[in-house]
């Protein structure tokens, strides 16, 4: 049973375009939703995160949209740059249990 479904598996975007990655979850106990960015040879690093009491959070070119009723959230990267090429993971945290469940990851390639 896959608790967190992430799509697409891979994504190719032209420089300046918008990259969109989606995640859906099932467990209503999840109450914190971070996105991580991972470059080759490095561990994942926190990019942006949202709590379910807000529907959107923006930090620079990165925005999370959150739909609590649909149990879905997405990462939008505006004005995508070649330096954004990386693997992106969504995560769902149950802060009471102290654990995170991760999506399978999306490999983003931004072409110059």
């Amino acid at each position, binding site marked *: 049973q896959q608790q967190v479904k*992430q799509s697409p*598996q891979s994504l190719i975007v032209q420089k300046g375009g918008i990259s969109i990655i989606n995640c859906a979850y099932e467990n209503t106990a999840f*109450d*914190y939703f*971070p996105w*991580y960015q991972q470059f080759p*040879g*490095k*561990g*994942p*690093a*926190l990019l942006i*995160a949202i709590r379910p009491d807000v529907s959107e959070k923006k930090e620079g070119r990165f925005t999370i949209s959150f739909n609590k009723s649909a149990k879905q959230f997405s990462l939008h990267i505006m004005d995508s740059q070649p330096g954004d090429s990386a693997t992106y*993971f969504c*995560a769902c*945290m149950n*802060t*009471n*249990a*102290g*654990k*995170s*469940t*991760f*999506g*399978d*990851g999306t490999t983003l390639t931004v072409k110059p």
Partner: protein
Amino acid sequence: DVKVTQSSRYLVKRTGEKVFLECVQDMDHENMFWYRQDPGLGLRLIYFSYDVKMKEKGDIPEGYSVSREKKERFSLILESASTNQTSMYLCASTGWSNQPQHFGDGTRLSIL
């Protein structure tokens, strides 16, 4: 900045060997985690620990054990390594259960 250090970047071992992967964090974090990362499967939780000498099984604990004798150090042990344990292993820590995790850069383990 939080630093999570994994002792080896690359490790090659033989089938049946006992393997130790070490992880140290420098921020006095209570919670520490071990994941394995495989292509297309995201990050899967092996074990986690929320205090010294405490441990909890994650989603895929079979074939692994852990040790946390000091707060800053969390060790993953492969009791008798098998080829299906060839993978990237990531350690993470967090101070509170409602905070995102900080990851090390991983140990790429090959079992021959």
